[in-house]
C-alpha cells in the first residue's frame, strides 16, 4: 500500500491532488492523534494538523522515497510544525501537565475502563517530553519502529531500546499511580 502511495505522489502533476488525497485519507486521523497528544490542545492540534498537511502538499515534490516512507515524511513535517507551535506558545509547562480537551468525555465508559484510562494518563504525565513524543509516534501515530527512526533521525535499534525503556517506565508509573 505504501508503494502505491509513493508512486502516485511522484506524479503530482497528473491530476489535482491525486495521490496526495490517498495519503491524506490514510494518515489524517493518525497525524491528528499524534499532534493532539503532543500539544494537548484540540484547537491548536487542528491548526497544526491543517498546517502540516498544507506544507506536505506544497512540498510534495521534494519527497524522496529513498529517505523513508511517505507516512514518516508526513509525520516529520507534522512533528516540526507541532514543535514550532509548542515553542511559540511556550507550552512546555502544559506538556507536563494533564490533558485539556483532546480526549472525548468518557460518559459511557465502564468504570474500570475509565479508571484504567485515567491511570494511564496520569502515568503519561510523569514521562519526559521526548518519551511522550516517542509514545505518541508509536501509539497515536501508529508508526513502525523503522518509521519512527526516520522521523527522529536515529537508528531503528535505538528507537527499539528507547521504546522498551519508556513503556516499561510507563508500566511502573501505572503501578505507582494505581
Amino acid at each position, binding site marked *: 500500500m505504501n508503494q502505491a502511495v509513493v508512486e502516485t505522489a511522484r506524479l503530482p502533476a497528473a491530476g*489535482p*491532488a491525486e495521490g*496526495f*488525497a490517498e495519503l*491524506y*485519507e490514510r494518515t*489524517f*486521523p493518525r497525524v*491528528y*492523534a499524534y499532534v*493532539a*497528544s503532543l500539544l494537548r490542545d*484540540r484547537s491548536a*492540534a*487542528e491548526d497544526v*494538523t*491543517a*498546517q502540516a*498537511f*498544507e506544507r506536505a*502538499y*506544497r512540498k510534495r515534490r521534494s519527497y524522496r522515497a529513498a529517505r523513508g516512507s511517505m507516512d514518516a515524511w508526513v509525520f516529520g513535517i507534522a512533528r*516540526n510544525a507541532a*514543535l*514550532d507551535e*509548542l*515553542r511559540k506558545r511556550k*507550552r*512546555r509547562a502544559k*506538556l507536563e501537565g494533564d490533558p485539556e480537551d*483532546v*480526549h*472525548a468525555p468518557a460518559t459511557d465508559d465502564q468504570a474500570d475502563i475509565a479508571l*484504567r*484510562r485515567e491511570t*494511564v*494518563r496520569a502515568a503519561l504525565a510523569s514521562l*519526559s*517530553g*521526548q518519551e*511522550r*513524543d516517542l*509514545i505518541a509516534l*508509536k*501509539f*497515536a501515530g*501508529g508508526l*513502525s*519502529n523503522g518509521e519512527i527512526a526516520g522521523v527522529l533521525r536515529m537508528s531503528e535499534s535505538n528507537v*527499539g*531500546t528507547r*521504546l*522498551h525503556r519508556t*513503556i*516499561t517506565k*510507563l*508500566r511502573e508509573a*501505572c503501578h505507582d499511580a494505581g
Partner: protein
Amino acid sequence: MTQADVLTAIDDALETGRAADGDPVTRELQELALALRADSPEPTREFGEHLGRRVERGFPNRARSKPPWWRQFAEPAAVAVTILVLVTGIALLARGPSGAMDDSSGGSSGGSVAVSGAEDAGGGGGGRTALGSPGFAPGQAGRKIERTFALELETPVDRMQRVADQVTAVTTRHGGFVLSSSVSTGEDSSGGDFDLRIPATEVRPALRDLGALADVRSQSQTGRDVTPAYVTTRDRLQAARAERKSLLRRLEAATTDTEAEAIRQRLDIVAGQINSLRGRLHGLRLRTDYAVVTVSLQAKDGDGGGAGGGSFGDALHDAGDILVATAGILVRVLAVALPLALIALLGWAAGRAVQRRRRESALA
C-alpha cells in the same frame, strides 16, 4: 524475554487488538499499548470534512503565515552574493595574465642614469626566475638585478599602428624610452618589434598597461643577479681613485724629474683604469635601474598579415583557444565561487542544526 521479543509482542497486540502473551509482564505491556492506542485523540467529523475539502481543492485558500523576519532579506542576499561572485570573477579576469609578470622585488637602487653610454657586458652569477615567481631576489633591497621581459602581443591589422603608438606612449608615460622599434602595417606582413628601457620601479605598471593594449600571446621574464660584479667594480673604482690621490700627493712631493715622470706614467695608467671602471659601473647601473622590455607585435590570425585564417586547421586552433580561455574563466570563477559555496553550505548546515536543536528544546 528479550527486548526484541517484548517489542514484537507489543506490535502483535497492536495488530490483532488482543493482549494474549503467555508472560504476565509482557501481557501487561500489551494491554498498556492497547490502552494507549484506544486513548488516542480523534479528530472531529467537522474538522475532518473541512480539511478533506481543502485537500481535494489543493489548498486553494492558502493561509499565509507570516514569514520569519530574515526571509525578506534572503532573496536580496542571494542576489548580492551572486553579483559579488560575478564581479570578483570579472575582476580576476580583467587582471589577466599580465599579473604573472609582476615583479615585487623592488631591489634596484634609484640612482639617476644617463641614457647615453656604452653598455658593458658585466660579469656576475646569473639566476633565472620562473614566470610568475615572486620576483628577483625578493626581500633583498640593494641587490643589483638585471631584468629582461619579453611580451608578445596580438592585434588586428587595422589596429596595428594605433597599438604601436600606444606602446611608445606607455613607455614614455612610465619614464622609459624606446631604444629601437620597427613597425610594418602592410597587407602581406604586419607586425612590429620594440626594444624598450623602463625604470625598474615602473616596470610593473608599465607591463600591465602594455598587456592591456592587445591580447597577450606570450610573455616571459628573466633576471640575473649582478650584485657581485657591481660590488667588485665599485670597489676597484674606489681603490683606483684612492691610488690616484696618493699618486698626486707623491707627485707634489717628488724631488727629481725621473721620479715625477714615473708617477705621471702611473697616473695615466690609473686614469685609464678609472675611466674603464666608471664606464663599467655606469653600464651596470643602466641595466639594473632600467629593465629591458622587448615587445613583439603580431597580427591576429584571420585578420590579414598573411595568416590566412580560413582553413580547417585555423578553425581547430581557434576552437582550442576558445576552449582553453573558457576553461580559464571557469577555473577563476570556481576559485571564487567554491569557497563561497562552501561557506554558504556550512552556514546552511549550522542553521539547520540550530533550528533542529531549538525545536527539540520544546520537548526538553
